[in-house]
């Protein structure tokens, strides 16, 4: 016997503080993914572009982000970039920017894949009634591609949410950081980290269940819409 005794009181006492951290985790994830989606859409469409300079630029961004660890990106952004700029970046801003830049690279691939999966005949039919390339993309291809992006975007959301725990290195008070601070005070690592893990799990599990439902709806409507040819 190690003499270890599980104390529910520790869990109960730390939960309110931890939920505050979880809230920040969600804010960072949602904010990061919102900007990440915009960034990823731009980069994904740039990657589809036939113009000579545009595609390599998008490629460099995507490869650089996918080829380096998130934690290194975070530290570079928070500790490195301010030295070059000469101004500090507030931790929350840095956190959201880091998630956005990171997720953007993965979203770019999701966007590219979804747009490319739409039959070429759709763009042609759009062009044949006189729509410009941009209009055909916006009114014909994009709405169809977006449906197909929903499941992978949901996955990316879950990945990014878990990745925010690495933001502990810049001291933004998200869930992992909050747990670390509580443990530093009461030394109850077992109860606190277990509680932290459960809170992460509840968030990701809820998301993945919600996602499964959305996926089901999307595939049902796809099935209905492509049943007769």
């Amino acid at each position: 016997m190690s003499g270890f005794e599980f104390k529910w009181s520790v869990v109960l006492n730390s939960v309110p503080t931890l939920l505050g951290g979880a809230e920040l985790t969600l804010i960072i994830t949602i904010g990061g993914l919102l900007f990440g989606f915009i960034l990823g859409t731009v980069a994904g469409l740039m990657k589809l572009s036939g113009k000579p300079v545009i595609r390599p630029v998008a490629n460099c961004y995507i490869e650089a982000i996918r080829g380096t660890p998130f934690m290194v990106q975070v530290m570079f952004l928070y500790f490195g970039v301010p030295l070059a700029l000469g101004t500090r970046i507030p931790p929350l801003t840095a956190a959201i920017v880091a998630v956005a830049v990171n997720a953007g690279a993965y979203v770019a691939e999701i966007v590219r894949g979804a747009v490319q999966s739409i039959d070429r005949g759709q763009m042609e039919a759009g062009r044949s009634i006189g729509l410009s390339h941009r209009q055909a993309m916006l009114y014909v291809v994009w709405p169809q591609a977006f449906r197909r992006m929903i499941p992978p975007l949901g996955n990316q959301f879950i990945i990014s949410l878990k990745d925010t725990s690495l933001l502990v290195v810049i001291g933004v008070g998200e869930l992992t950081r909050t747990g670390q601070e509580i443990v530093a005070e009461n030394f109850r690592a077992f109860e606190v980290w277990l509680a932290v893990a459960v809170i992460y799990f509840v968030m990701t599990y809820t998301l993945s269940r919600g996602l499964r439902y959305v996926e089901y709806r999307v595939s049902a409507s796809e099935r209905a819409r492509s049943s007769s040819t």
Partner: protein
Amino acid sequence: MIEVQDLHKNFGHVEVLRGIDASVAAGEVVVVVGPSGSGKSTFLRCINRLEEVTSGRILIEGQDVRDSRTDINMIRAEVGMVFQQFNLFPHLTALGNVTLGPRKVRGASKAEADDIGRKMLEKVGLGDKIDNYPSQLSGGQQQRVAIARSLALSPKAMLFDEPTSALDPELVGEVLAVMRDLAREGMTMIVVSHEMGFARDVADRVIFMDGGVIVEEGKPSQIFKQPKSARLKDFLRRVIEH
């Protein structure tokens, strides 16, 4: 109205069109026939520049399709196109498919576009299907929506790229009937088709293509009853036998 001069088209090293000269007058119905791989679909797709031409000239009402000053989007609105695979927009209803052009290309208001859309769907016999999605329509109905989608822009000419080839045999008639009506109303039409009956009855002129060139052209009676070239005779024999 449509003038094609010495049209060449290569796909990589493969020469698909090897010098096509053709002209289509306003109100004329031209049916293009020929074995598969003869370049007839490519020829059609070059006319509204869905395919980039390698060399040659295409004039539509005197406007050079390849000229950088030509607004290709306006040309395409004036020259409707119907595809073998319909290519309806699956996320839009029949009415949504037909009104997209009027709204975004012609700048019509929603009410105006809906009005045009309803008329066009009625014209192709689908006035009761305006709220249906393409997946809820048969192949023949889908192709008729596709025709209405082009007509909604009030084009001066229509291109049909094997419009009935993807249809079950019993659905071919309803699409051909709509095309016959259009021809009767004086629409300028170029139709790539394997429907010899349609060509015989409706065409003012039949063009026979093989190997990327026009081998023979003339009135349907002449093409079908007195073919001159060996290739056309051979083609007709194979088409009619099977």
